């Protein structure tokens, strides 16, 4: 279908194809529509994920107490309103899976890569509109299967989002490891296929379809981030796919890749010679890069939004690109920091400690560059800007504790405790979520031609920000007190009785934080129809997407695609009357590009 994009490139865009409802809204090949489809599917999955976290938080705060909500939502899994121990683990597992993959990978990358890559590089559409459509529908299918798995008789997958075998491989070890796990694996295999198609498309598009003058060093940082994210995805997702396939073989065809010497429920199983540690290696070879797949696009969005709303160039454009590249490279050689106490050779632990602490350096560079970007700016406090500042804040708070977890000696005592839960939620969960919100508030006018209500946006941000710290900051302390994660209740350990009140506080913040997302949902869905009409360039940004008409058209630009003459960050450039110079404005006579 690349012919499709090509024809557009040759100026026949004036007359549109005849579009039916089906081709326009359902089987659309237009990148802007596909972006919206990703966003809305991701949003629905996000609501499910958050509801789950609210339920299991209530269980931790008020263990084994009857709860009308459980009774209503969990049915037979909560006899008389008391949550079952197995379903607790299932909720945690599916929450993690949904949040990491469906919301913050597909929902985030899928939405913004699709929306922004063609618009910001000056292309009529993705390299292959057809593959793009297939990629979305595979994602949709995988979401449906994941949701269906919640209704399986013996329960959904419950072995943690990391699905370590043998627990995930043996139905006799756990109810959820039967049909539930099968569906989980099938859903993830389809998800990976979807993600690979998407990533290939993004890479090809960025490399081939840039408009005239759009050199790699004039690309907005968003595009750099999406591009490198796609490359990381292409490198690491296939490894998870093979891990999943080998696990399916072990489960259904009697191979022994990951299993050996198992005695369970009175019988010895035939497995011989496999190793669960091998699975851990394969899983984390994707699993760690995955956190960068989640965070890099958010970083790109935040960089762009911060520059635009500070009315200042992003500080250290080249250093930002260099650090994205460094992070991408290092992210593939640090996976072992999840396995310090897995039984792997301690020498490997030393190596992974070294590489892990190395990756802190480019991350620190980025944080300092963002702070410098707002220094002496003229900050426009739009909701998108608030979420971007919030992003930097949680990224720092969460990132700093990585110094502890990446240090193998220290990890011995906090591994798999709530300290880890606190760390990864702040640095990747909340940060990426903020990045996503920032992107939505900023590009909503581009997506829907209308503005989101800013006051609701402010309220959404401030309450969310307080709750996010309220939930995850105290978690560090119960983690340092030795409280393991994935515990259905702590009441069997009098040792942890003095943590009960912290857990109640955390849960109250979580409930408030979860419920206020309703404000956002309301704003989002109502504004599609009743929001204030957007102007063409509401935030006065320099990038090309704001040169397209508000009304969406196939092919993006009614006339010729604009040419690019400068980088994306000419904000408040001396010698210009306005405080922004769009990328398609030629250099004035004698003007230097002034690009470092």
């Amino acid at each position: 279908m690349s012919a499709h994009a090509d024809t557009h490139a040759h100026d026949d865009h004036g007359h549109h194809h005849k579009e039916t409802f089906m081709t326009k809204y359902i089987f659309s090949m237009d990148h802007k529509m596909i972006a919206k489809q990703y966003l809305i599917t991701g949003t629905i999955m996000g609501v499910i994920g958050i509801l789950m976290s609210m339920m299991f938080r209530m269980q931790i705060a008020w263990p084994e107490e009857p709860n009308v909500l459980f009774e209503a939502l969990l049915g037979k899994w909560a006899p008389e309103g008391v949550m079952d121990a197995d379903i607790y683990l299932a909720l945690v597992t599916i929450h993690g899976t949904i949040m990491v993959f469906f919301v913050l990978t597909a929902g985030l990358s899928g939405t913004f890569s699709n929306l922004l890559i063609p618009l910001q590089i000056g292309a009529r559409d993705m390299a292959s509109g057809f593959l793009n459509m297939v990629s979305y529908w595979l994602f949709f299918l995988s979401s449906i299967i994941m949701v269906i798995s919640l209704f399986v008789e013996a329960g959904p997958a419950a072995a943690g989002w990391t699905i370590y075998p043998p627990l995930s491989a043996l139905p006799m070890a756990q109810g959820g490891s039967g049909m539930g796990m099968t569906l989980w694996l099938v859903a993830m295999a389809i998800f990976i296929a979807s993600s690979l198609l998407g990533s290939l498309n993004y890479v090809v598009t960025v490399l081939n379809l840039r408009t005239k003058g759009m050199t790699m060093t004039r690309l907005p940082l968003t595009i750099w981030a999406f591009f490198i994210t796609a490359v990381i995805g292409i490198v690491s997702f296939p490894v998870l796919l093979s891990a999943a396939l080998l696990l399916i073989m072990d489960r259904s065809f009697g191979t022994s890749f990951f299993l050996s010497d198992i005695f369970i429920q009175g019988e010895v199983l035939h497995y011989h010679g496999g190793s669960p540690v091998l699975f851990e290696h394969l899983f984390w070879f994707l699993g760690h890069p995955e956190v960068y797949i989640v965070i890099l696009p958010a970083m790109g969005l935040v960089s762009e939004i911060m520059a635009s709303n500070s009315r200042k160039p992003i500080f250290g454009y080249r250093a930002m690109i260099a650090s994205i590249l460094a992070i991408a490279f290092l992210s593939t050689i640090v996976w072992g920091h999840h396995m310090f106490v897995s039984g792997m050779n301690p020498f490997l632990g030393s190596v992974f400690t070294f590489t892990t602490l190395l990756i802190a350096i480019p991350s620190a560079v980025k944080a300092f560059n963002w702070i410098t970007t707002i220094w002496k700016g003229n900050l426009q406090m739009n909701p998108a800007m608030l979420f971007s500042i919030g992003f930097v804040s949680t990224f720092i708070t969460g990132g700093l504790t990585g110094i502890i977890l990446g240090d193998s000696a220290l990890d011995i005592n906090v591994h798999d405790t709530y300290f880890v839960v606190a760390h990864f939620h702040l640095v990747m969960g909340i940060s990426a979520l903020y990045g996503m919100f920032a992107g939505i508030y900023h590009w909503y006018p581009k997506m829907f031609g209308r503005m989101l209500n800013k006051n609701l946006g402010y309220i959404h941000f401030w309450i969310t920000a307080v709750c996010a710290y309220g939930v995850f900051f105290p978690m560090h302390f119960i983690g340092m007190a030795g409280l393991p994660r994935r515990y259905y209740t702590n009441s069997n350990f009098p040792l942890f009785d003095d943590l009960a009140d912290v857990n109640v506080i955390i849960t109250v913040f979580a409930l408030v934080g979860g419920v206020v997302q309703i404000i956002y949902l309301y704003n989002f869905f109502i504004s599609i129809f009743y929001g204030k009409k957007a102007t063409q360039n509401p935030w006065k940004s320099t990038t090309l997407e704001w040169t397209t008409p508000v009304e969406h058209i196939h092919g993006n630009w009614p006339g010729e695609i604009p040419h690019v003459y400068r980088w994306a960050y000419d904000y408040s450039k001396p010698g210009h009357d306005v405080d922004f110079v769009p990328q398609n404005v030629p250099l004035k006579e004698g003007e230097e590009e002034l690009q470092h």
Partner: protein
Amino acid sequence: MTALLTIIVLVFILVAIWQMVKIFDLAQAKADCDQVATDKDNKINAYLMMGFLAFIYIITIVSIVKWGDLPLLSNSASAHGPTIDNLMAISLVIIFFVQTVTQFLLHYFAFKYKGEKGKKALFFADNNKLEAIWTIIPVIVLAGLIIYGLNTWVNIMGVDESDDPMVVELYAQQFNWTARYGGQDNTLGKSNVRLIDIDRANVLGIDEADPNAQDDIIVKELHLPVGKPVLFKMRSQDVLHSAYMPHFRAQMNCVPGMITQFGFTPTVTSEEMRQNPDMVEKVANINRIRVEKSEALVAKGEDALDRYEFDYLLICNKICGKSHYNMQMKIVVETQEEFDAWIKEQKEFKNSLN
């Protein structure tokens, strides 16, 4: 109770939201209903940024004051414990410092440089010197931490056979622990789950023909003599488990099909730890909480909770199924004499079979 609380929280949120909408509404000039931030918005949010900075500091201080003594930061009970605690303390201080400074800069700049019409931002795109500074400073700090950390790690994980550690097997299964001592010869008999014979009570799959196995001792409560190095050999019969002994700063996964190991030297007996003033206070606090809870339970006609007395614990820290949350074994650290007396009471493997 829970439902009521949830409802109260909901109502509270609704009221708060309504009030905030009002505040934002009032703060806006009515004529300007555009959805782009105005100078007023910039100002309000700039002040809120400072408020939020205060919030971060407050929650940090409150957490440290209220819960800072909960962590097992002091009072480790193993020889290598203090080195981990020390490194942890240094790391926490560095983190605390960096966190305080960077959050200040971020929020203060957000406040100070709030947008105003007509103001122009500084065109400041690059500065190699600055970039060099904030590349090199983290490099130095991290290099220090890496060197210290790796030293500690190598010392902990390296097993020094010359100090003749006592070998103990930790055997995990859904959902309980078993320990096995090597006996007189301090050597564990060979084992494999394929040799498990429930009818003969050979539950760990020990090779009955192995001479080293005959004097092995299998117990459900782990006893350790103080001051004597122990080398744990971990095994699991079904799924992954993790042997976590937080007071000893020790953890290692138990992997089916493989033997993993971790060694340490306990330095404080259970009895001494119970006398430790910090521990006395912690236990008193826990018992206060338990008494309160008991009252509520008794009022409902249920049994009161037992009084808590401190014990070291081995707990499972790798998700292993339904009862993962209750997979524990008591650890008793005692003097060599007490230990010798205790172990003499235990049955040897050869005598424990049916």
